[in-house]
């Protein structure tokens, strides 16, 4: 009888874990409607100097036509944007332009592509297209873990 009870309890517990996992998956994959701002032209002049882009954080809306003007102020620097498959290189004192439509929502890192010194591999910046929904999902997941932690207590 006791064994039966504990096996019922265990199967109940598995169901509860499965539900939590399912909620976690929903948080991660459910589509969130983007704000429908009208696409506009966006222009950024980015000064690249050793290990630093200025500005390093670019915010645009989904659908915006973005033009980046890269100006290297000391040595040759490059700029490649993860997820957009875009890359350019600027010689010192010369400006190069890169245009694209920000058709992918999310946070994308951009980084230098020309070895420019010791900290070159860490010369990065961020392109934010729309809301950083990924971060919000992660925060919601953290909330779920908190709930799971408190629920675990109730066992």
């Amino acid at each position, binding site marked *: 009888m006791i064994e039966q009870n504990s096996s019922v309890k265990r199967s109940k517990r598995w169901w509860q874990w499965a539900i939590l996992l399912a909620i976690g998956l929903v948080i991660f994959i459910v589509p969130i409607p983007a704000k429908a701002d009208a696409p506009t032209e966006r222009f950024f002049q980015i000064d690249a100097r050793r290990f630093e882009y200025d500005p390093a954080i670019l915010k645009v809306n989904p659908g915006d036509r973005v033009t980046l003007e890269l100006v290297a102020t000391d040595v040759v620097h490059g700029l490649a944007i993860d997820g957009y498959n875009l890359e350019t290189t600027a010689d010192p004192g010369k400006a190069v332009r890169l245009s694209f439509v920000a058709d992918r929502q999310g*946070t994308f890192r951009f980084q230098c592509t020309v070895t420019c010194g*010791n900290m070159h591999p860490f010369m*990065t910046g*961020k392109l934010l297209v729309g809301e950083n929904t990924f971060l919000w999902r992660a925060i919601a*997941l953290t909330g779920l873990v908190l709930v799971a932690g408190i629920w675990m207590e109730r066992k």
Partner: protein
Amino acid sequence: MTRLQDIPWAEEIPFNGQLDKSHRRLQFPDRLNLYRVDWLRPLFKSRWPQFILRMLTLAGFVFTILAGLFGPQVGSHNFAIIFVWIAWWTALKLVFIPFGGRSWCSICPIPLAGDWLQQGGIMEPGQRRFGLNLRWPKRLRGSWMQSGAFLLIGLFSAVTLTNPQVTGWVLLAIFGLAVGMSLVFEKRAFCTSLCPIGGFSGMYAQTSPVELRIIEKDICAKHEVKSCYQACPWGLYPLAFRDSSACGLCMECLRACPSDNLALNLRPFSSDLGRQKTTSRLDETFLALVMLGSVVTFAAVFTGPWGWLKSAAFEIGSLPWVRYAFVYLALNLLLMPVIFIGAVWAGERFSVSWNSLKRAIATQAQVLLPLGLMSWIAFTVSFALPKLILILGVLNDPFGWGWSILGLNQSIQKVSISGPSMVLQVLLLMVGLFWSFSVARKLAATSAKKSQGTKLPIMAFSLVFTLLMLWLLVG
């Protein structure tokens, strides 16, 4: 160092008493004694497999120093930088520690020369040959100096991690220090008290699924020679092990025990955590906090978009670097300890009766271990994984002399994996948070007053730390 003389509860060891629960537990089916697995036993029993691995790591170590000092001085093309800070550092955090505890220590090349000098041999150790054989000063014991060494790494990390010559000199200095200390002090004083990686590995080894323990307490207690203690190059006595933080898994005790009374157990993760501490030592707490402060700083410097911060960390001696150093030290020496102590204090206030705050701090520090380990792994995913491809490049031309050993003619390009790596980072941080909650719950359940309120402020601490890491890594 867990010496016979240093065990505060040595008098509690019953010489002919019953096995206590914690040791009886080791014989239960949630442990698998790898030393009793027929095909694995010869690998541990013989010194040859370990010796061969140590020779390989020693050869790699010497080659790395040479490549650092004489190879190309561009970090991303230098064997030393890529192998130490990308390959080895990643393997340590993603494989060795989470799955093997201090397994790296068992094949680390750094103490090899010191062992040889001290013992007059590696294959047949035990006879002391050179050195003053002094005992390490009592007031320097514990992991305080390891924390200090890690803080030093953090202060100079932007240069050490990117400048091949500095990496070469640092490795050489560590090797020289280890050899020098082995000539002055007995056993592995460097590994036990100074090596920052030893501190890092030892602390997080408590979360790992590997442990070395005695099987029958009575057999050890009756054994007068204590051959395991005599054989241990670390100066440890296995009967005294309460967690896996000190044992370097060198297996010498297994080989020396005449009664076959030692086990190399595969165990559930986190087995060492969730128990009340019997001492009020704060060195481990401080080390755990330094690891948390350091991973936050490293994530901001190396993966953040703030160029001014990278420059400040890199330009050693400049005013921005002084500011960076001040903030880094204030974070680790002041802010993190104050917040954590505040959380423990608040937790104790929630509870019915007041315990020793020092002991409570030492106990609650266990919550920080899964949190720190998973944060380091999550940071490594973004720091190192995208650069793993560079390993091929330096293997192809280790000295930058235009060789093409692997026949790779095209320049090695960095691949972008930021998409999947961000998902992985979030999952790792969530596992760390849940795991730390689980340890907090265990601690609350095992406390004398069984007050669940004690864990709430610590859970809040873990939650805020996780949110900070999330913002740094995927924000």
